């Protein structure tokens, strides 16, 4: 039976909007998997699943968040074998690069940030634990609200905030170590 015109238009609209998020989904997949081939597989699987479950997407809601939620769940199921609920995030400790710089270097804090190469920031993000990496990806890179990030990750907003705080501390620690190794700053790591 031929597809009704309004159904055909709906499918075309869905496809058009979905494909508009390809670049951002691919960048997210690359950050999560840290491997271009796996990122391509993850994105393709995300679109295949989105197409299969497009009836569950409510028109007018946040498709980007919906697609990220599908991709996030596929990532944990297929690449990690779990959804991440029980992954330990211990051991990062409290670390504030801003305070460390104020205490230990004569160089203005903003100058240190300006000295960091984009590739080094990407490396530091990719070295974060997966649960830290995904919250930084969602909130800092993609600009998700805490509420939308919580829905994507399937956790309360408070968990998003605490993971984000710890993720940023871990990120600062990594950047501090790089700044020391590369001679941007001189001082002892805290």
């Amino acid at each position, binding site marked *: 039976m031929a597809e009704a015109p309004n159904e055909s238009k709906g499918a075309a609209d869905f496809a058009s909007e979905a494909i508009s998020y*390809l670049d951002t989904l691919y960048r997210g997949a690359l950050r999560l998997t840290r491997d271009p081939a796996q990122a391509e597989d993850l994105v393709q699987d995300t679109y*295949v699943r989105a197409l299969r479950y497009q009836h569950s997407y409510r028109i007018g809601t946040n498709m980007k968040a919906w697609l990220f939620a599908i991709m996030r769940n596929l990532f944990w199921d297929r690449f990690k074998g779990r959804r991440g609920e029980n992954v330990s995030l211990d051991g990062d400790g409290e670390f504030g690069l801003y305070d460390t710089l104020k205490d230990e270097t004569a160089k203005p804090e*903003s100058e240190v*940030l300006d000295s960091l190469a984009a590739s080094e*920031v990407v490396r530091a993000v990719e070295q974060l634990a997966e649960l830290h990496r995904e919250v930084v990806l969602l*909130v800092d890179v993609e600009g998700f609200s*805490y509420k939308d990030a919580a829905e994507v990750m399937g956790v309360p907003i408070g968990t998003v*905030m605490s993971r984000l705080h710890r993720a940023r501390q871990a990120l*600062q620690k990594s950047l501090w170590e790089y700044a020391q190794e590369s001679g941007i700053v001189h001082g002892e790591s805290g």
Partner: protein
Amino acid sequence: MRADKRMNCPDCRQRLEQFVDRELDDDDLRHLEQHLSACRDCADEYQWHASLKRLVRVSCGEGEAPAQLRERLLQILS
């Protein structure tokens, strides 16, 4: 100029990440902005957090999906 009495430095520092993420409610936002306008130390730390967030967004927010992936997906979605 004195810092706003309704928000001290520890309260401000505790909310700086939410401020940078644009997640504060109107009351906290007003009090925090008043505090930042009067407190150089907290304003410096705010600039630091904002710069770091911007650096992460710019550094990780570039790059396009491979053309062949786009082609495959367009076929899947058509």
